[in-house]
C-alpha cells in the first residue's frame, strides 16, 4: 500500500514531551525495537500520527540516557539483529506523571473550548 500523499496535512508535530509519553506507553506492553514502535504508534493512532524517524531515534536515545528505558540487541522473527527497548521502573513512574499532566492539559483546553459566549 502506497503511503497516501495527503497524509502530509495530518502529520502533527509532536512536542518532545508528548513523543516521550507515546513511546513509553507503547513500551508498556512489552519490549519493542524502533521500527515496531513507530509502526505501533501509527497503527494505534489510526494512521494519524506518523512519527518522524528523525525524532524517534533521538528520543529513544534520550530516554535511554535518562534511564527510563533499557536497550538490548536481539534477533527479530525474521532473524535480523535489532535493538530492543524495554521500559524500566523509573520509566513507568515518568509515564504516569506524563499522563497526569496530559490529562490536566486536555481538561484545561477542553474547558476553554467549551465556553459558550453569553447570549446577548
Amino acid at each position, binding site marked *: *500500500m502506497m*503511503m497516501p500523499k495527503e497524509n502530509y496535512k495530518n502529520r502533527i508535530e509532536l512536542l518532545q514531551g508528548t513523543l516521550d509519553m507515546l513511546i513509553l506507553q507503547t513500551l508498556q506492553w512489552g519490549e519493542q*525495537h*524502533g*521500527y*515496531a514502535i513507530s509502526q505501533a504508534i501509527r497503527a494505534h493512532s489510526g494512521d494519524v500520527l506518523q512519527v*518522524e*524517524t*528523525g525524532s524517534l*531515534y*533521538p528520543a*529513544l*536515545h*534520550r530516554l535511554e*540516557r535518562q534511564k527510563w528505558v533499557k536497550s538490548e*540487541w536481539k534477533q*527479530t522473527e*525474521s532473524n*535480523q*539483529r*535489532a*535493538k530492543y527497548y524495554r521500559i524500566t521502573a523509573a520509566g513507568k513512574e515518568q509515564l504516569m506523571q506524563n499522563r497526569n499532566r496530559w490529562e490536566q492539559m486536555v481538561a484545561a483546553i477542553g474547558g476553554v473550548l467549551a465556553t459558550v459566549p453569553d447570549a446577548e
Partner: protein
Amino acid sequence: MRWLQKKSELDAEIEAHMRMAEAERVECGESPEQARREAEREFGNVALVKDVAREAWGWMWLERLVQDLKYALRQLRKSPTFASTVIATLALGIAAPTAMFTIVDRVMLRPLPYKDAGRLVEIKDWSSDVSTHYFGHTPYLDLEEWRRWSKSFESISFYTQANGRNFLEGKTGTEIINFYNVSTNLFSVLGVVPQLGRDFRSEKDGFAKSGDASSIVLSDTAWRLMFGGDPSILGKSVKVNGVPYVVVGIMPRGFAFPFQPKAPQVWTIVQLGDKDSGRTDATPGYEVIGRLKKGVSQAQATAELKALQVQVAKGYADAEVREQRSTIWMNPYSDSLVDSDMQRALMMLLAASALLWLIACVNTTNLLLARASARQREIAVRGALGAGHWRIVQQFVVEGLLLSTGGSLIGLGMALLSIKLFAYGIKQHMVMPVPIAPDIRIMLLLLVLTIITALLSSIWPAWMAAHAPVEPALKQGGLQSGSAQKQHRLRGLLVVVEIALSLTLLVGCGLLLRTIYALRHVPLGFRTDHIVVANLQIPSYKFKGENMTSNLYLPLLERVKHLPGVQAAGLMSEVPLGNTFNVILNLNGDTTGKNAGKDISAQLNAGSPGLQKVFGFKMLAGRFFNEEDTPTSQPVLIVNRAFAKLYSPDQQDMSKVVGMDFWHISGDKRTKIIGVLDDMHQKTIADASMPEVEASITQLTPGSGVYQPLETIAMDIALRTNRDLQSIIPELREVLRQADPALAGSNFTTMDQVVEDSYGSQQLAAHLLEIFGGSALLLCVAGLYGLLAYIVSQRTRELGVRLALGAQRCNLLWMVMRQAGVLLLIGVFIGLALAIASGRLVRSYLYGVEAHDAWTLGCVAATLFVVGMAAAYLPARRAANVDPMEALRAE
C-alpha cells in the same frame, strides 16, 4: 573506546530500521529498489538523525573538537608553506620571552635557601653624608648594642670573610675555599639546620663569646669535593691554611651563605680579640644580618635603629669617624644579591623579547587574515549549510592553537639552544648556582604563552570570517569584489604596527652596538696582544716567616722567563681590568712629606721591572722600575696620572710629582716617586681611572708595611709570548707546581680575554638585542611582503583593466611601491616616536652615545625604509608584469 562502539551500534540500529521498512514495502508489492528508495526518502536525513541522536549522549563537543582538529591538520598539510611560515614566526616570537624568562627566573626570582628569607635584612653603619666612601663594616661593640637594645629583631648575627686566600686540605688535594668567621647564632638566624652533625651553638643564647674556637662547619659542596661525601669526616680534624679544625657539622645541599660564592664555603666561629674592644677606624668590622620580628616592617626597624645609632655613635672618640657612623642603612638581604645594574639590564631585555613576541603575533594575525579571506567561499558554504558563528570561530581557534603549539615546541628548543650558546657570557655576569635548564615554571609560562598567542592571533580573523556576509562570497567572481577594501586597510594597519615595533627594537640594538664600539675604542694605555696571564691564589700560610719575594716570586719569575718562546715576563698583584683582587691604600695627611695634612686614598699595586716589556705602559714622566731598584737602594714608587693630578704640588705640571718624598714602605727610608704612568683602566673600561700607587716587588721584604697585602694574597704572572695559549699552559703549570703544589690549580687566560670579559654585560645585551632586532626586521619585512603580494593578487583584474586602458607598466610599479612607501613612512614615524619615548629605559646602559642619538635613529629608520622598499619591489614587479588578457578572462 566505548564511544566508537556506541557509534557503530547506532549505525546498525538505523540500518536495521531501514531494512525492516524496506521489507514491509516489498511485502506490500513494491519492487526492492523502489522499496529501498522510498524507505530512505521516508526516513529523512540519515546523517542528521545520527547526529541528533548522538547529541543525546552529551559528548558532541568533544567530537566536534576532534573533527576540527583533524580538519585543521588536513588543511595545514595541504598548504605547507603557509604552515611553516606561521610556525617559524611563532617559534621565533615564543623562543625569545621563554629564554629571557628562564634567565630572569634563575637570577632574580630564585628563592633563597633560608627559612622565611623575606625577613632577613642586612644592617650597616652608615654615614649621613652620602658622598663619603664608607664601606659600612660594623665594629663589634656597635652591633652588640643593637642586639641588646633593639626590639625589632628576633635575633641578630654577624660574619666576616677571612683575610687573604684560604686553602683547605682535603683527600684530593689542596683547594681554595671561601672561609668565613661567623657568630655562633648565624645558622639559626638563617633558619637552616645542618644535614649532619650540629650547629656551632653550645648553648641557647650563644652569640660570639661562646663556642669552640676550633670547630668548623663545611658546606655540602666542600664536603663532596674534598672528602668525597664521606660522613665519617664528622669529628675529624681538617686543616685550613695549615691550622687544624674539628668538623662539627655539614650544611645541607644547596645551602650557601653569603649567597653567591665563587668557591666552596666553610665556616668557623669568629674570634673576638682586644682589637674588638675599641671603636676607631682600625677596629675590625663585620657584616650584620638580622631577622625581623613577625609584624615588624623594615621601615619601623630602620627608624628604631637610626635613633639608637645616634646614641651608639657617641662612643666614637674621633669626630670624623663618628660622623661616618652616625646612622644606619638597612636592606633586605635578597635585594643585595643582584646589582641594580644587572636587574635593569634583564628587565630591558625581557621587555625587548616581549616586543619581539608581539611583532610575531601581529605577523601571524596578518597571515591568518589573508588565509581567512582566501577561504571565504568555503566559510560561506559552511554558513549556508548551517554552521553557527561559534562553530566557525572554534574552527579557526583550533587551527590557531595547532600552529601555536607547533611554534612553541620549536621555540622551546630554540630557547634552550640559545641559553646553552650564551652560557659562557651569562656566567660571566651572573653567578648561577644551578645549571640552566627548564623547570615547571617555565613550562607553565610556555603553556600560557602558547594559548595567549593562539587566541590573540586567531580571534580576530576568526571573528571576521564568521561574521562575513554569506551571499557575496557565494556569488560568481565574488573573490575579487571590492568588499575586501576594509580588510586591506586593517592589514595595512597591522603592518604599520609591526614596522613601528621593529624600529624601536632596532634602535635599541643600534644604540648598544655603538656603545660597544665606543668601549672597544677607548685607549687602554697598554698592549693586550700575545699576553698570557696566570691568576695565582697564594697559600701564604706555607711561607710564614719567609721572604716570599726572594724565595717564591723571583725564582718563579726566572724560571718562567726561561720557558721556550717567552719574550718577557713580569709579576703584578693584579693585571689591569683583572677584577680579581685589589688593595686600597689610605694614608693620613701627616705621613706625606710636603703635602702635610692631605689624606691620600689610592689603589695599591706591586709590579716587577719586566712588566714594561710585557705591557708596554706609556709613561708620562720619569721611568718604570728597573734592575737598579733593589731592597737596599732607594725605595721607589710609581704613580698614575689620576694620582698625580690629585696630589701633585703643581697642578699644571703633573710630572712635578716625580721626586716627591713619600711615606716609608720599608725601614726608615722615605720613598721617592720616580715615574708617572698614563692612566689605565682598573675595573672596567667605562669607569674612570682611579689614583694608583705601585711599588716594586723586588724591593718588598717582609718588613715592609705593604708586603702583606701585596704579596701574600694573590699575584698575577703576565708573559709575552708568540706561542698560543694551549701549548704553553702545561709548561707553565709544571713550573708553578714546582714552586708550590697549590699553585698548579691556577687560572690561565689571555689579556685579550680579560679585556673582553671586562666589557660588562653590555656585550651580552648587545648580542641578544642583535638577534632580537634582526628577527624583528625579518618578520617585519616578511609581513610587508606578504601584504603587498596579497593585495596585488587581489587586484590583478583591476590592473589588467588599467593596462588595457593605456597605463604604462612603470605606472603600475610605482603604484604598488607608493603604497608600500606610505605604510613604511607611517610605521617609521610612529616607531621613531616610540623609540624616543622609551629611550629612558636604555639610557643607563649606554656609553659614548645618547639615548636619542639622531645619527642612530636616522640610520635605523633609513635602513628599515630601504629594506622595506626592496621587499616591496617583488610584488610591484609582478603587478607590472600582469598580462591583461589573462587578467580579464573570466575566472
